């Protein structure tokens, strides 16, 4: 176990000052996620254009440093990607948090991968994996117009 790996400076910084933490006015897709164990909530808003490119993305919610940082970094990385690229990034991220040693996505630049890998310390804390993944599951739900609340228990 290594706390320094979990709470890297970039995580603390994003946790304290999350990017895109607002409700964008002109969103056309959204979904809510909830972690019933700890009470964390997240609401992801997407503005998807005709070419299914994410023109804008934001989130609202409250949670621990890990969940806020994860949502913050996610929104930064997904902005400007098209739907299939975004979903591929989500898969890659979830795979990395679960078991893969590194990210394989060709839709991410090297420095984006480095940023995302800051969350890899969560792997060593099984109880905290849900904190890191809630916003990502919620993003997929928003793309797919699912109205059910995303629950990390499922």
């Amino acid at each position, binding site marked *: 176990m290594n*706390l320094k790996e979990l709470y890297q400076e970039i995580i*603390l910084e994003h946790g304290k000052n999350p990017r895109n933490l607002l409700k964008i006015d002109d969103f056309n897709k959204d979904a809510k996620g909830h972690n019933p164990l*700890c*009470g964390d*909530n997240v609401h992801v808003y997407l503005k998807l254009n005709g070419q299914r490119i994410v023109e804008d993305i934001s989130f609202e919610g*409250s*949670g*621990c*440093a890990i969940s806020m940082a994860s949502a913050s970094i996610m929104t930064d990385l997904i902005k400007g990607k098209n739907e299939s690229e975004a979903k591929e990034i989500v898969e890659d991220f979830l795979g990395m948090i679960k078991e893969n040693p590194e990210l394989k996505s060709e839709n991410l630049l090297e420095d984006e991968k480095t940023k995302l890998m800051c969350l890899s310390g969560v792997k060593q804390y099984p109880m905290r994996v849900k904190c890191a993944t809630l916003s990502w599951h919620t993003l997929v739900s928003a793309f797919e117009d699912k109205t059910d609340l995303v629950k990390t228990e499922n």
Partner: protein
Amino acid sequence: MNIDQVKKEFPIFDEKIQNNDLVYLDSANSSQKPKVVIDRINEFYTKQFSNVGRSVHYLAVAATNLYETTRTSVQRYINAKDKNEIVFTKGATEALNLVANTLGQSYLQEGDEILITELEHHSNYVPWHFLRKSKNIKINFAEINQDGEITLEEIEKKITPKTKLISITHLSNVTGAILPIKEITQLAHSKDIIVVVDGCQGAPHLKLDMQDLDCDFYAISCHKMYGPTGLGILYGKKKWLEELPPYQGGGGMINEVKKDRISYGDLPNKYEAGTMATAQVIAFDQSIKFLESIGIENVMKHEAELVEYGQELLQKNNSVKLLGNPKDKGGVLSFTIEGIHPHDIATILDEDGVAIRAGHHCCQILHDKLNIPASARASVGIYNTKDDLDKLNDSINNCKKIFNL
């Protein structure tokens, strides 16, 4: 037994947890188990096991006697009038569900009102919510004051002519407030209102006297009381347990079963359908004897000293904010730190071997009221020391350092 020696009776404290000595501050969630309880389970399964209350062979009779011995010990420990007022359940949750279900079946009527409080654990709210759904019963909430207490005056204020039942916690698992159960019961009974007490936090830490409290029902969680998991106790006044219908049907709870009619067994069998948590019941006798050997007055004095010490320590720690400040307080220290989420606090404390709980502690109503999504909670038991609370404070300072506060 000397309270200073108590910790040695708990084998878990001989273990290294992730290379640390264990500082266990999560007893409100579940307590650790003394060696006598652990050994008793092993001994029963190894040398004495049989099902109870059915067969006539030697082991069955002996096991039945052991099982009933615990019932007598519980009766003594909580000073119930009658041994048959003690019903074993699978937990306090089942005990509260049993009360809500059976009162719902045969006593409460559509339009009746139930009074609970904002301090209640979900297990003393959700079972009543079922009746709100099925019988159109209204649930009212007594509100906390600024110290996180529920006063007698507030209860009096919230009673209406339709109030038929008050269901309240003895000791809040979040603010630590101890409720004036005896006074509330006196008031309620003067208005023909039934009183149900969620004693999960009260039973392990307070002196219990059912005849003095005079409440109608009292639910106990054995695993919070230095006993095994999978076991709870419902105390119910005999007149209620006799009058109310059974909760679950099955073997052991019947008198006679015919194709066209069934009659039910007498107390306490009426409420103990199926094979019960036999080994747990038998081992729980050791938990009671263990508490009796220390003396509940000594337990209460020790824990009051700990909570006072911990409270002072945390009050002096900048940026730590304690939830509630009740005058009559049990061993629970819930807190928040501005700028650090409770889950981050719990993870960092865990790294130092300090086990606390983070979240809403099954009290979302209370956290909504306090306008916070979650809190961190350190709770004490008989094995804790002031040194444990110093370690808690040191570890909180480590959190602040990591988060650059």
